[in-house]
């Protein structure tokens, strides 16, 4: 069994092997997170790779106040938000539409199913999807999410409210269509 605290201490001091082990242990978790926020396999791989490079670069500044996994998803979230900002609005919408088709096909191939819940989640704007996932799936508090995304706590609260409202609406519409 590996001792994460010991590995973190060694990695912060500059031990490359300890850092490699830490990154390896968190790779799947990080990829799964980036896949959910991007809903795009290629983009998730890119963000995962960039996050790991950033972590290598900044490991000396890791203070251990949060878990290593939290630190990684903070980096990944901010990298993704930065990338979205760089894209033009229309282009981004087209990309997201295409992404959802891709991941839907891929998931259907692997799971033989594409639940309505995932469709609704995928249709959420990334701005709403990230805090919703962090709060309700990963269990972070609003204040933690605010720090992670570097936005005010009030903004997190309103995004969570709007995100959930949209999810409820989408899933209710789908339910009604199924009944009819």
């Amino acid at each position, binding site marked *: 069994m590996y001792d994460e605290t010991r590995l973190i201490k060694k990695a912060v001091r500059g031990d*490359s*092997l300890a*850092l*490699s*082990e830490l*990154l*390896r242990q968190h*790779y*799947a978790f990080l*990829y*799964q997170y980036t*896949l*959910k926020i991007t809903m795009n396999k290629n983009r998730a791989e890119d963000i995962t790779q960039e996050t*790991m*490079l*950033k972590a*290598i*670069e*900044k490991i000396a*500044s*890791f*203070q*251990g*106040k*949060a878990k290593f996994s*939290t*630190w990684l998803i*903070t*980096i990944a979230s*901010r990298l993704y938000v930065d990338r979205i900002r760089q894209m033009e609005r229309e282009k981004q919408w087209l990309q997201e539409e295409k992404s959802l088709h891709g991941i839907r096909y*891929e*998931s259907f191939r*692997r*799971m033989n199913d594409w*639940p309505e*819940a*995932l469709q*609704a*989640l995928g249709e959420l704007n990334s701005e709403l999807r990230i805090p*919703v*996932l962090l*709060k*309700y*799936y990963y269990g972070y508090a*609003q204040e933690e999410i605010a*720090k992670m995304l*570097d936005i005010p706590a009030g903004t997190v*609260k309103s995004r*969570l*409210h709007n995100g*959930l409202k949209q*999810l*409820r609406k989408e*899933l209710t519409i789908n339910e009604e269509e199924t009944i009819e």
Partner: protein
Amino acid sequence: MKKKPSNSPDDQQWFDERLGDAIRRFDENHLPETAELQAFEQLVLAHKQGLKKKLWKELLLFWLTSCFIFGSMMWVLEQNWVGFPVMQAVIAAGGIIIALMKFGNRTGIKWKS
């Protein structure tokens, strides 16, 4: 009508019931293959080496620029007493502008844990 407070325990329960299982299944079915430790070690070492190289390059550039500026200042001082403070003021202003442009953009991108 009383507005239901957002982020209540009901919201969590609703999310778990309606989306929780689907997302967990999605995660399970998109588990990536994790490379061997050696591959991660290579990535870490290569990136650290790249960063070190970049740092040395920047340091060398800094020294060269410093030498050039110092040489120019000495030359101006020897040639023209009035031009010397003017040149110093221009260089100081340029330095401040570059520093503001470079470090001004960096605020907010701190990966605090």
